[in-house]
């Protein structure tokens, strides 16, 4: 276990190094921030001074090494726009996205797994047909459209939930959180549901497929032949086997919610990272873009690690210390 975690860490370092190169080069290809940031009225001397201040007069590889040098000291550069450390700006916006992502993931698991179990156990019943038809809608309706409909229905006509913002927050450890207040929760519900819709459909279908795969297995027949109740068979013998693929997808999807919650955040004016990164791209705020991408990479690596550990807990056949190039 320890050996394999160590090996994972080494792999993660390689991924990080590779990502810094890709990200840095990629960001350098798209546009020149000088054109946007410096007022057209500025004279040539002023331009040269600013370019030198941003470090943009240096060749790309020197810029890269400057960045790596800073990154190793926890400094991912200073935002051109806010004139503050990029990392600090990202971290200010991260909690909002994180709590939205967690809420959406919890919601999709809480709805998707029970519905998927039901659909798998009673494949021909009427509720199953409705569930499966609904999941197709969940897959295919575009997020922005559903988001706007949700605002229209529940915020504008019914007035049950607010349409934008985070609402009241409580500051814990110097970070503002919405989920600790009722008002914050109300604000969170619609955007979280909007994000959860696709994931719910995915988890639901995965669970259903899992149930249909597990039910005809001999060990389920044996469990029934042992005289166990249906409830115990489903909750103990079926569920744990079904969860194995579901955990992987939930993990990956959690990462993708964080990375791609842009649309929902924009619609519900949720002040998270997604909104920040769109704004930063618009003004070519390179340090913020780079810092954001690096944070996302680190998050993905962490999530994968957690998924791997969960995997070994669920499935004893997979042992991290078994080696074999894992």
């Amino acid at each position: 276990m320890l050996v394999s975690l160590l090996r994972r860490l080494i792999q993660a370092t390689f991924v990080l190094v590779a990502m810094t190169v890709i990200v840095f080069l990629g960001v350098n290809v798209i546009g020149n921030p000088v054109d946007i940031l410096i007022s057209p009225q500025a004279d040539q001397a002023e331009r040269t001074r600013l370019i030198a201040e941003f470090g943009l007069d240096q060749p790309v590889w020197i810029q890269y090494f400057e960045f790596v040098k800073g990154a190793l000291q926890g400094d991912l550069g200073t935002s051109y726009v806010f004139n503050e450390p990029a990392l600090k700006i990202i971290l200010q916006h991260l909690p909002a996205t994180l709590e939205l992502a967690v809420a959406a993931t919890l919601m999709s698991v809480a709805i998707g797994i029970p519905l998927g179990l039901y659909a798998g156990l009673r494949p021909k019943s009427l509720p199953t047909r409705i569930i499966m038809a609904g999941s197709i809608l969940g897959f295919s309706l575009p997020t922005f459209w559903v988001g706007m409909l949700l605002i229209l229905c529940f915020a504008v006509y019914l007035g049950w939930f607010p349409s934008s913002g985070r609402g009241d927050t409580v500051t814990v450890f110097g970070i503002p959180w919405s989920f600790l207040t009722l008002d914050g929760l109300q604000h969170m519900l619609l955007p979280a549901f909007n994000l959860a819709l696709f994931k719910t459909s995915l988890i639901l279908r995965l669970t259903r497929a899992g149930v249909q795969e597990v039910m005809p297995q001999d060990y389920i027949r044996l469990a029934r032949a042992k005289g166990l109740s249906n409830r115990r068979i489903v909750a103990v013998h079926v569920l744990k086997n079904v969860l194995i693929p579901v955990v992987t997808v939930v993990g990956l999807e959690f990462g993708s919610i964080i990375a791609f919650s842009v649309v929902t955040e924009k619609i519900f004016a949720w002040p998270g990272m997604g909104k920040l990164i769109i704004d930063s791209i618009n003004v070519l705020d390179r340090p913020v873009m780079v810092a954001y991408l690096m944070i996302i990479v680190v998050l993905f690596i962490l999530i994968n690690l957690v998924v791997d550990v969960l995997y070994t807990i669920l499935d004893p056949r997979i042992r991290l210390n078994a080696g074999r190039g894992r």
Partner: protein
Amino acid sequence: MIENRNIAMQGDDVAENVRKAFEMNRPPILSIRDLTVSFLNNETWTPVVRDISFDVGRKETVAVVGESGSGKSVTAMSVMRLLPAETSRVQGSIMLDGRSLTQMSDEEIRDIRGNEVAMIFQEASLNPVYTIGFQLVETLVRHRRMMRNAALAESVRLLEKVRIPAARTRLNDYPHQLSGGMRQRVAIAMALACQPKLLIADEPTTALDVTIQAQIIELIKHIQQEDDMSVLFITHDMGVVAEVSDRTVVMYKGDMIEAGPTEQIFHHSSRPYTRALLTSIPQLGSMTGKSEPEPFPVVDHTTGEVTPPDPADRSVVPAPDPMLRVSDLTVRFDIRGGLFGGVTGRVHAVEDVSFDLFRGETLSIVGESGCGKSTTARAIMGLVKPKSGQIRLDGGELGELSAEMKVAMRRKMQMVFQDPFASLNPRMVVGDAIAEPIARFTDLSARGVADRVAELLELVGLAPDMARRFPHQFSGGQRQRICIARALALNPQLIVADEAVSALDASVKAQVVNLLLDLQQRLGLAYLFISHDMAVVERISHRVAVMYLGEIVEIGPREAIFENPQHPYTRTLLSAVPVADPSRRHMNRGLDETEIKSPLRSVDYVPPRLPIREVAPGHFVRQVS
């Protein structure tokens, strides 16, 4: 036929039979009358089991035997009410000890399951994600209302009862950490948890190696006597039937053909189907005194008419040079682990294997799982890279040929695999599957390819117009014929058949073996026949090689290996094969829990090269360490 309960007395166990006769007079533990089971298929109810009636007496073993699709498992499942209620309908009566199982509420039947009637299935029936202990405790808590600690102690006792070594430490193991035989022992322990009156064993030994199968059968017999339990044994193997059962029920396509004492079924059956089944099962020892292979006699399922095997000369034409010569073949697989992926162990899959194979000859390689027989075949086909050794086909050394030459050489040898469904692409019509190698390697026109496909299908006994069908439209036996046709497409000289008939039903197996023998004679093929089934090997081979832990321990003419085995392992293997002779049933082999050894060794292991001596012309035996 149910009334027919006279017991064949045998001098040495009169007391046993008196006890049995006494038991017989008590009402049976399980009584099935007019059982008809129907499945819902496209909105119509199709009967899959029709009018079955039989009893299982107290302390009696009844075997239900039949080929796949005979309804034997469905019968067993309907006793336990394990068939899905929505898609199956059970009519008739099933009485357990005077109570009707079919009339019970779901709650009542659950109290019976695992408690009064227990069931074991094929080997992989333990839940892979829970420990052995968890699964044993579960049953004890459910039916015997035990507390956790008491249940754990009882679990250890149960595991010891089924002779699992170091039972206490096994409780925390997961199923995959145990061998197949040990897993089946655990399942039996679980079944015994509540001292059931009836044990239903549904093909419990089918997936096991032959020596392990013998152990499990012996264990079930032993426990049955210990616990005074009745056993309903579902199997397709007449050899197993003869070993275990007092009475036998023969089923065919959902109908009960006959039921009666096992001796009577085996020796005096009047039913054509039973006789056909008995004739078509490969029986070890049926070839004693014959040196050449011989096809199975063919028995008509409805008339019972026996067509004796074609008496053609099947001897190998002597040739100065072998077609295939394998010398000192060694295949090892590295096991990697640790932080930097270093080699932590090595599987010595094939160790110093040498043999010759002549034109028109069948050499069988036999052995149990992990002995290296399949790896040898794969190394010859070039599917795994040998560590050392030479493989010469028609004098050409395969390792030294150019890539182009290798392809040409490969055309001379083809492979047939075990699972005929998995080795045919389900989305490709079989004609295309057979045509693929022809179109790739010959200059025939489209018309010519189609003609060749038709010719090949006829050669293996199928109709040419079947070329347009998909694999799922064929039965298992027909699919294997298609695989053989595909292997023959390029006129090979050597066919490597890796367990090619192992997955087939007895009568189909006989037909495919007959086809292989027929093709050999017509086309002069050489076969490398890989199998664990000693009885089939006895039919088909000219020579036999016995492999154990990667090495050939004995090789020689078939007659010599089967009638005069020299190596202890060969003898173990031969004595473990179930013999279709009910009179041997009361022979007690003794309980044994020897596991099949693993060829996984440490990195620095150097295999001992034990000398081989020739005990008779062409009969070589490796010295025992």
